[in-house]
């Protein structure tokens, strides 16, 4: 807390006026939704039990107050956008059958909506704490190989001890706590990539080395690309988690291109993707199954295509203006009309009740998020921060695009959460951290970046993994 006090002394609290106005709008919209939902359920004008709504609005207000009191000079649109998405999520979780997820806390038994509200609280806390407390990014950029090593260790843990959820090995359980590490992994990935690419940009953007008659890309550039490709393949094969693999690989290729801006890199990335996709399609039935469902879900509407067909029905029922909150059809005869409606298919449920109009607004929210995040990136004071902010933005908006495009049958469906909206603690926590990271990087008071090459031997040596990797780098180049 000393950091916070110092900051307050230095600049003092600052009222974030635009954020307050936008949050007011968010509060109004979610309250309207709440009344609409409660009235539909009751059959007459009603407020329902506003406890969860008030708690949610309180959390948003608290996050805003902390940022203001800490004198944050960061972007004032990001929090309201994430807040609106979280509010829509809360409305949907209140509306869905509460028995979908139940957890006992001693004598207290909590259902879907209260649990999601807790996760939203965790997410907002994480965002605020990171935004306020992250005063210097030195430790992020210095220990990039440690982050990479931690990520790979985490991945191996999941490979070895992961539990299956819906046919994918996603969940890691430590005592009573269970989580999906791929959500945390995506943060480690962008931190590492930002550090690695920022350090090696000049080398990577340079010409290819000639090795006898062969024109090869520089090895340090080729190796990480192949490594990322291999990791993505391994995630698909071992974890059967197509969504995470696609997300990691796509973010990697885009960041690599941003760093080098060579079209060849993009082409190479796409080529490797195609090769990987063909190999996976040829040898792994679960990948082939996904593609076949995508091509003709109605052929197996009662079998493998059930989920996506039910999702499409929901989209059709919604039409342009939607059925209205609470008037959709999440369940029939005690069965869910779409399996996993609270996680992978939450977007379809929202699109049913809010219609195409609401669905496009949700898409627009992610586009606004992308715009604000990339703005922070382009205003960043050095390459590391630019790449980190861009990566943080991409892991959120690319993930949203992957799952929504899957729901809308634009691409094969891959199970992955919709950031800030899907039910789930890991997802909300991780995306909260990403939000905090963006807010922190956008804060003009962030400590000035170290001059290039200033990260000295001392930090290198403390970064145990980096010491090894650095030596390898020197040998290769």
């Amino acid at each position, binding site marked *: 807390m000393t950091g916070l006090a110092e900051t307050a002394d230095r600049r003092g609290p600052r009222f974030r006026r635009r954020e307050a106005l936008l949050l007011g709008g968010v509060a109004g919209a979610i309250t309207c939704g709440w009344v609409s939902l409660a009235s539909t359920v009751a059959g007459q004008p009603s407020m329902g039990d506003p406890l969860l709504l008030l708690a949610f609005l309180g959390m948003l207000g608290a996050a805003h107050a902390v940022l203001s009191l800490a004198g944050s000079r960061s972007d004032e649109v990001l929090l309201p956008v994430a807040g609106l998405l979280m509010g829509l999520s809360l409305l949907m979780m209140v509306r869905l059958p509460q028995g979908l997820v139940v957890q006992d806390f001693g004598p207290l038994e909590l259902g879907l909506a209260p649990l999601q509200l807790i996760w939203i609280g965790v997410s907002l806390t994480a965002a605020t704490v990171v935004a306020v407390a992250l005063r210097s990014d030195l430790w992020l950029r210095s220990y990039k190989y440690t982050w990479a090593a931690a990520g790979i260790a985490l991945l191996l843990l999941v490979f070895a001890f992961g539990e299956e959820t819906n046919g994918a090995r996603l969940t890691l359980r430590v005592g009573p706590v269970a989580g999906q590490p791929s959500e945390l992994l995506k943060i480690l990935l962008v931190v590492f990539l930002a550090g690695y690419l920022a350090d090696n940009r000049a080398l990577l953007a340079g010409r290819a080395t000639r090795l006898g008659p062969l024109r090869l890309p520089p090895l340090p550039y080729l190796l990480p690309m192949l490594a990322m490709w291999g990791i993505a393949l391994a995630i698909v094969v071992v974890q059967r988690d197509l969504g995470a693999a696609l997300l990691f690989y796509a973010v990697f290729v885009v960041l690599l291109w941003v760093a080098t801006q060579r079209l060849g890199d993009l082409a190479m990335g796409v080529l490797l993707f195609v090769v990987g996709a063909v190999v996976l399609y040829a040898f792994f039935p679960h990948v082939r199954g996904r593609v076949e469902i995508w091509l003709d879900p109605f052929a197996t509407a009662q079998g493998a295509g059930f989920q996506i067909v039910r999702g499409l029905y929901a989209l059709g029922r919604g039409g342009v203006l939607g059925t209205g909150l609470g008037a959709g059809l999440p369940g029939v005869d005690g069965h869910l009309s779409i399996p996993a409606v609270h996680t992978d298919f939450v977007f379809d449920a929202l699109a049913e009740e809010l219609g195409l109009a609401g669905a496009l607004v949700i898409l627009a929210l992610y*586009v606004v998020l992308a715009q604000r995040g*990339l703005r922070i990136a382009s205003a960043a004071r050095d390459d590391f921060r630019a790449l980190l902010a861009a990566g943080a933005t991409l892991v959120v908006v690319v993930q949203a695009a992957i799952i929504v495009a899957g729901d809308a049958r634009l691409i094969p469906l891959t199970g992955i959460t919709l950031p800030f909206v899907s039910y789930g603690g890991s997802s909300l926590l991780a995306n909260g951290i990403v939000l905090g990271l963006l807010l922190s990087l956008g804060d003009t008071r962030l400590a000035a970046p170290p001059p290039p090459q200033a990260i000295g031997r001392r930090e290198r040596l403390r970064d145990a993994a980096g010491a090894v990797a650095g030596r390898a780098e020197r040998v290769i180049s």
Partner: protein
Amino acid sequence: MSGLPDLPAVGAPPRIAPALLRVALSLIVVYGAIGASLSWWQVVEAERLTSDPGNPLLVAAESEGRRGRIVDARGVVLAESVPVGDGSWTRRYPHPEAEPLLGYVSPDFGSAGLERSFSAELLGLRSLAPGGDLLRKLRRDAYDPQDVQLSLDVRLQRAAVALLRGKRGAIVAIEPASGRILALASTPTFDPNRIVDPATGAAYFADLLDRPAEASALLDRATMGRYTPGSVLKVATAVAGLGSGAITPQTIYPDQPAEERTGFLVQGFRVRDGHHLQTGRRALDLTGAIEVSCNIWFAHAGLDIGGRRFLAWGERMGFGEALPFDVPTAASTLDGGDGFLDDVELANAAYGQSETFVTPLQMALVAAIVADRGTLMRPHVVDELRSADGRVQTIVPEVWRQVLDAGQAETIALAMQQAVEGRLGRRFAGAAKVPGVPTAGKSGTAELGGEREPHAWFIGFAPVEAPRIAVAVIVENGGAGSASAVPMGGELMATWLKLAP
């Protein structure tokens, strides 16, 4: 290559900000594509998805809403919902002779027929009011049940079922100028009231399911039954021949009279015939070949048309894929779906044997093409949807395919009249003659091989000049067409012309 050493150029890398702008633009394109595909499902495809029988919305609506009625062309009720006391409704079917086309809907045994394919309309999932679906959420009643009016006339339907009594078979009657189905019968049939009655449903439905496939009452033979057509297919061959230009009305095959005695040798297979006692040494033209149903002439014609053109013209008439209709249909094929293996298969297909398999509905359409002088109207049995507030949506007859020139169709029509009324034709299809009305038709006897009795077929229409009805009749294992199917076709056409003078 210059003489300079090729060193890696490690200079200042490009600025990042411009690249980020391109990333942002790409993201906008990606999200635009997602928005477009959402619009596709939520606007363009919304109606189809909502009406899809698999949509759980139907189950939900079923439990709380009342279905509309199904009525025939004159308003006679064929299906309606009646209260059963505890606030729920059950379905009543006053005219079971409209089965299996009508179908049934039961909470225990699902749904079939029109009751299934028009569930969305009967339950009123869509509104007939303009913008009604857009504003559904503002209405108190979410559903707007509609009455479905058919083009079917229950009097003609009853006559068709009576003709088929005790036999297995199907009859399709269609109005050629509009494509409206007038009767669509399939026997054996079932009583939907016993399916929906909780007291009898389980035992009755189990009994229906237990029957062997060939005796099934649930199968709609008129739309789903695929039969060898025999000589009625020659009408389709004539359409393909004239349409493609492979034959003309004057085409004769000089070798044909001689081949009547020896058989026409195609790649070692002899096509045979049975009418040379009547035609003798006369080489037949198209009209003569249809009148006496000359296999050899049509085998020649089929070879002249050629496999590819025959299939292409078949497609124009609706062969090769399921017909667009108000209940599911099976696809009819000229080649078994796998192409013509050789000239033997093609020559035999041209007169309705080898791997030709057709539905009675498809053969009724072939008759209707000739009757309507070359135009194929889209067949339909639902004429109108009516909502409780008096709004009406009329299904306007539409041209599905323009198949043939009017003049070419006229040639075939007159040849078919000759087949019913001509000196030689009378012997085969004379029983189809509607007294006092010029009648056209073609009989068929589909050989099945082995010991089985052939299927008896008839297709035809009347009156020849301005046809008001076209029919297809099949009696499974009914023997020679002239014995059973032909008089049935004649009687049905006569009944209709009397009912609707």
